[in-house]
C-alpha cells in the first residue's frame, strides 16, 4: 500500500469510528436532541469554514461575502426540491448553482485586491440578500417555509468528511500550489508562468460550491430559511473561524470552528450579553496573538490537534 493509500485508509477508518461512537451515544440518548443539533451545526460550519479557508488562507483573497453562496445553495436546493427533485440531487444541484454564481461573481471582482476585494464581496453578499428579499416566489423577506427536515446527522457528518477529503486533495496538487503561490506573491507567481486570475477564480468557485453544499444542508436542517440569516454578519463569522484557525491548516480551522460554534451556545444564559462577550473575546485574542501571549489551554489544544491532524489527514 502506498503512503497515500495508508493515510487515506486511516482517515476514513477514524471518521467512520467517530461517526459510530457519536451515533451510538445519540441512540443511547446520552447526546440529546439539543446537543445533536449543535453537533450538526458544527459539521455545517466546518464545511463553510473549510471552503472559506481555501479562499482566505490558501489563496490569500479576503472575502467578506462568502455567506452569499450559502444563501444561494440553500435557496436553490430548497426551490429545486419543491419542483419534485429528490433530496440528494437537490443539494448537489444547489451547490452547482452556488458554484456558478461564485464563478460569475469571482471573475470581475477578483481583479481587486485586499480591502477593496473585501468590501466588494461584502457588497455582492448584501445585494444577493436584497435580491432574495424581493423575489416573492422564494418567500421574500418573510423567508421560505415548508422545507422538510431531510438533513440528519449522517448527511452532515459525511458531507463534512467529503469536504475535508476533496479540499485537502486540492491544496496538495498543482492547482493548490498555484493558489498558495498567489497568496505568497502574485507578481512572482505570474513570472513563474501562473495565470493568477484563473486560480483565484478556481478557488472562489470551489469555495462557493462547498458553501452551497453547507447552505443546502442547512435549509433541510432548519426547515425554514430567511435572507437575513445569510447577510454579511454570517460572512464575518466565517472569516473569524478561519483567521483564528491559523493560516492554511485544516485541523486548526476545524478546532476553532468547533469552539466558536459551541461558545455562543455555552454563553446562552447571559442573554444579550453573550453577543458582547463574543466580539470582546475576538479583540482580546487578536491583541494577545500580536503580543505573542498564548492562552495556555487553547494553544495546547491547538497544537495537540494539529499533530493529530497531521497523522490523520489524508493529505
Amino acid at each position: 500500500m502506498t503512503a497515500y493509500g495508508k493515510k487515506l485508509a486511516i482517515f476514513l477508518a477514524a471518521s467512520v469510528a467517530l461517526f459510530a461512537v457519536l451515533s451510538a451515544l445519540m441512540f443511547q440518548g446520552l447526546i440529546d436532541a439539543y446537543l445533536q443539533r449543535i453537533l450538526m451545526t458544527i459539521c455545517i460550519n466546518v464545511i463553510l469554514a473549510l471552503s472559506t479557508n481555501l479562499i482566505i488562507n490558501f489563496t490569500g483573497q479576503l472575502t467578506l461575502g462568502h455567506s452569499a453562496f450559502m444563501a444561494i445553495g440553500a435557496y436553490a436546493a430548497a426551490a429545486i426540491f419543491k419542483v419534485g427533485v429528490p433530496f440528494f440531487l437537490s443539494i448537489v444541484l444547489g451547490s452547482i448553482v452556488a458554484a456558478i454564481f461564485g464563478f460569475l461573481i469571482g471573475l470581475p471582482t477578483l481583479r481587486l485586491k485586499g480591502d477593496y476585494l473585501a468590501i466588494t464581496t461584502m457588497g455582492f453578499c448584501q445585494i444577493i440578500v436584497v435580491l432574495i428579499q424581493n423575489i416573492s416566489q422564494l418567500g421574500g423577506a418573510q423567508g421560505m417555509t415548508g422545507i422538510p427536515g431531510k438533513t440528519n446527522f449522517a448527511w452532515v457528518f459525511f458531507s463534512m468528511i467529503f469536504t475535508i477529503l476533496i479540499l485537502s486533495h486540492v491544496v496538495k496538487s498543482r492547482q493548490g500550489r498555484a493558489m498558495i503561490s498567489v497568496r505568497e506573491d502574485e507578481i512572482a507567481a505570474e513570472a513563474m508562468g501562473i495565470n493568477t486570475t484563473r486560480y483565484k477564480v478556481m478557488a472562489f468557485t470551489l469555495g462557493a460550491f462547498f458553501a452551497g453544499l453547507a447552505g443546502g444542508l442547512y435549509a433541510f436542517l432548519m426547515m425554514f430559511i430567511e435572507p437575513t440569516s445569510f447577510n454579511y454578519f454570517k460572512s464575518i463569522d466565517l472569516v473569524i473561524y478561519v483567521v483564528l484557525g491559523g493560516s492554511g491548516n485544516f485541523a486548526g480551522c476545524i478546532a476553532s470552528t468547533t469552539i466558536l460554534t459551541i461558545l455562543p451556545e455555552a454563553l446562552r444564559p447571559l442573554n444579550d450579553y453573550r453577543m458582547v462577550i463574543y466580539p470582546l473575546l475576538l479583540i482580546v485574542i487578536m491583541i494577545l496573538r500580536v503580543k505573542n501571549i498564548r492562552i495556555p489551554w487553547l494553544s495546547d489544544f491547538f497544537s495537540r490537534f494539529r499533530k493529530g491532524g497531521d497523522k490523520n489527514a489524508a493529505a
Partner: protein
Amino acid sequence: MTLVEFLQQLINGLSLGSVYALIALGYTMVYGIIGLINFAHCDIYMVGAYIGFFVSTDLHLPFVPTLIVAMLGSAIAGVLVERFAYKPLLRKASSISLLITAMGVSLLLENGFNAVFGGSPRSYPHNILTQKSISLGPVRTDSLHLIILLTSVVLMVLLQIVIYKTKIGKAMRATSADKDAAALMGINVNATISATFAIGSALAGAAGVLVGILYNSIDPYMGIQPGIKAFTAAVFGGIGMIPGAFLGGLILGVIETFVTAWYSPLSGAIGFIVLIVILIIKPSGLLGKKVSEKV
C-alpha cells in the same frame, strides 16, 4: 418628474449626501493615515446619536450644545477604540488582523448598546429643532433638510481649515504621506493618529445627531446602512482623499434619493451596487491616483 419635483428631490438628496459625506470623511482620514477600513466608524456615528439623545432628553440642551457635546463624546469614543483596540496591533499585525479587530469593535459597540440600552428605537425630543416648511419660489422644502445641509457644510469647511491651516493638520498630512519620515521630522505620530480618529469620530457623531433628529429614531444598529453608504462614498471619491469623500457623499446621496423615488426596494442595495460598479470600472475612485506595486 417635473422640474420642481426634481429640485425638491435634489435638495433632499444633497442633505442626505451631506450626512454621508460627514461619515465618509472619517473613513477616508483613517484609511489615509493607517490604511485600515475602520469598520467601527459607523458605530461611532451611532454612539454620537445616543449621546445627543441623552443630553437633549435628560439635560434638555438645545440643538447646538447637543451637537457639540455629542461630537466631543464621539471623539473620546473614537480615540478609546483606537488606543485600546487598534494601537496594540498597528505595524505588528497583518492588515487582515487589524480589519478583523475592527469588525470585533463594531460588533462590540452594536451588541453592547443593544444589551445596555435595549434594541427598541428611541426618538429625540420634538422641540429640539422645529420643522417648518420653507418655500424657495415654487420649490418647497423643510427647515430640517436645510439645517442639516448647512451644518454639514460648516463642519466640512472647519475640517478644511484644520487640515490645511493648522499645525495638527500639517502633522496629519505628513503622517499619512510617510509615517517614518514624519517621525524623523519630530512629529508625534501616535498623537497624530489619535487626533485623526478624534476628528473623524466627531464628524460622525455630528452626523448621528443630525440623522437622529431628521428620522426621529435611533437604535443600536442604525449605523450599518449609512456606514456602508458612507464607505462607498469614500471609495467613490478616491479613498484617502478628503475632497473626494465630500464629493462622493453628495453624489451618492443624490443617486440614492432619485433611485429610491423611482424603485424603492433597491434602497438597501443601492450603495453596494454603486460601489461595485465604481470598483470594477475605476478602482481608484473619482479623485484617487492609481498606485501599482513596484517590481
